[in-house]
């Protein structure tokens, strides 16, 4: 069972029928759809014992899934799976929970800046610019001064949250929330970050929220971005093919990094994991298929980059030899891997905390509060919420 768009569905179905042709004794039923409500459906299936054998999951769900129970087989114990095909550090950082290998990474997903090159040419910006917080603000100011209807950044409150968390992380070098559920930052740093965010709003780097509100949660569908009135979108590299379909002249860069950053805040993580249901009746067959899915040359050629740049070096080699990989995407992935930050812990990515952040960012954007008040409000709310979340563990 997986989620995705049309390209991914088709490639995966093709791979499945290819496998069925090679293994006439195996019949695979595919279950697929969009990502909306996928997790809800999965948890319902897991709790009622009707979940499929092979399950695509997202690394950010692991904490939530494991607080519900232990559902997945330890893949390192299955002899049919060749774990050595993967980068061991990558596996260690993201795919192990309680010393069990929960799933195998389908691809590499990193935080990236999507760049509309036509927009950059129009304003005379070099798309190879290495971004820092300062030159981002200066460039944004210049853009909005030249054209009042243009904004450098396409951002909703979620993307402003990326900016906030990354900015703070680079100053402190800590996790946003530490493993013991205490704050990874002090008030001064947070105020500074909110001030920076406020500056971005003030100089017209970001389209006013009152205008972009209907696209809250889907900035890549904002007509301002599609029509080339905004030039940069901070997002995950895994949505590359979808963005490319709309913006023909597309380039990628890394998110801004402070020259004195203690850590870059650049996230490199698996696009998704594929796990095996612990209660499956066909664990061995599922393992064989999974191994084929990741290592067989024909499978790799069929699946291409529908789940991002593949996570195994072999697969990357096969694809680039056959010209099946977009070089913009692979270059960006390589840059990101060079600069990657330590993996984010579970609590820092908590959905309820994210809602608190985006609520406060909206208040700031609508000028209801000052950056100082925003910092106060966030810290006070966290001080109440974190013990609550900790007690629910």
């Amino acid at each position, binding site marked *: 069972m997986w989620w995705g768009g049309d390209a991914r569905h088709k490639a995966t179905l093709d791979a499945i029928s290819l496998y069925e042709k090679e293994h006439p004794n195996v019949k695979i039923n595919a279950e697929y759809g969009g990502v909306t*409500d996928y997790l*809800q459906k999965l*948890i*319902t299936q*897991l*709790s009622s014992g009707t979940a499929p054998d092979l399950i695509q999951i997202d690394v950010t769900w692991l904490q*939530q899934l494991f*607080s*519900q*129970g232990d559902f997945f087989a330890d893949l390192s114990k299955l002899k049919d799976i060749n774990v050595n095909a993967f980068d061991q550090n990558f596996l260690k950082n993201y795919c192990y929970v309680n010393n069990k290998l929960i799933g195998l990474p389908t691809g590499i997903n990193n935080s990236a800046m999507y760049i509309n090159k036509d927009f950059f040419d129009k304003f005379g910006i070099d798309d190879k610019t290495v971004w820092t917080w300062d030159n981002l603000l200066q460039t944004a100011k210049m853009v909005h001064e030249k054209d009042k209807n243009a904004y450098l950044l396409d951002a909703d*409150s979620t993307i402003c949250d990326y900016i906030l968390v990354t900015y703070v992380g680079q100053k402190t070098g800590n996790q946003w929330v530490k493993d013991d559920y205490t704050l990874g930052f002090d008030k001064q740093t947070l105020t500074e970050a909110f001030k920076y965010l406020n500056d971005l709003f003030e100089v017209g780097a970001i389209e*006013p*929220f*009152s*205008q*972009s*509100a*209907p696209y*809250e*949660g889907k900035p890549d569908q904002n*007509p301002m971005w599609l029509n080339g009135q905004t030039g940069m979108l901070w997002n995950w590299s895994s949505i590359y093919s979808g963005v490319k379909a709309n913006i023909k002249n597309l380039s990628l860069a890394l998110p801004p990094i402070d020259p004195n950053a203690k850590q870059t805040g650049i996230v490199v993580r698996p696009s998704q994991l594929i796990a095996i249901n612990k209660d499956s009746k066909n664990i061995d067959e599922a393992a064989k298929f999974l191994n084929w899915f990741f290592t067989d040359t024909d499978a790799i050629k069929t699946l291409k980059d529908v789940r991002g740049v593949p996570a195994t070096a072999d697969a990357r080699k096969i694809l680039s030899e056959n010209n099946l990989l977009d070089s913009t995407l692979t270059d960006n992935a390589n840059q990101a891997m060079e600069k990657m930050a330590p993996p984010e812990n579970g609590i820092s990515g908590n*959905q*309820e905390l994210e809602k608190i952040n985006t*609520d406060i960012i*909206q*208040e700031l954007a*609508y000028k*209801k509060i000052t950056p100082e008040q925003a910092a106060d409000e966030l810290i006070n*709310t966290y001080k*109440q919420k974190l013990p*609550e979340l900790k007690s629910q563990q």
Partner: protein
Amino acid sequence: MSYNKKRNLMGYLYISPWIIGFLIFTLYPFAMTFIYSFCNYSITKSPVFIGLGNYITMFTKDMYFWPSLINTIKYVLMTVPLKLCFALFVAMILNVDIKGVNVFRTTYYLPSIFGGSVALSVIWKFLFMDNGIMNKFLSYFHIHGPSWLGNPHISLFTISLLSVWEFGSSMVIFLAALKQVPNELYEASMLDGASKIRRFFSITLPMISPVLLFNLVMQTINAFQEFTGPYVITGGGPMNSTYVYSMLIYDNAFRYFRMGYSSALSWILFLLILIVTVIIFKSSNTWVYYENGGR
């Protein structure tokens, strides 16, 4: 088996699909949410009894509880009167004997057929975007339309309008009631020289007041439970201005998987609706007129 018994049994058999559905999909969940509301329950693990814990958290700790409740009450106060006035107004216009009036009646009823559907909410979103049809239309009159969905002061009203637009079912009921008002009352009052307005307030309104009560209760209950509009159109934003109570229930149940807490929230909504309905019924003694004296 006697004839009567047989006939009763047949009756039950005929309505059995509804009874079975009611027992399984309404009564059972209803009872279970009551039990779960006293538990800490996250789907996959078995529920743990925590007494009134959920209810205490709700009133003391949950920072979204009061704001979402206030949003919901605002929404009800905006939607229900507006919708009833509009429905009654249209019903009165359509209560005339001209050729082809049925075509108009059908046309005005159409929006209600779509119900609280997702597709309609999506259309609403497109209508009221900054560069949407609504603002284009206003710009022909040199009015600079507001940011219907982006302005936190207006967004809830925009969603309320969607519900008002679906006035058809109330309208049909009003229309039926209007047809029942005896014509001789109007004729007599006209002989006495009563104005149109006087006739509306002294004859029409009292005569249809039982139906007004019915519509008021039904629409109030519906409005308290509104979910699709805010969920699809604004996702609760901007600045949580459209974050209504049912969204809080949804988020706790399906985003944070706190089924117990979510059940408790649902029960508070149920009690709130119950109280409001009782108040409306109590007050109805003073303003609802029954021709047969209410018997």
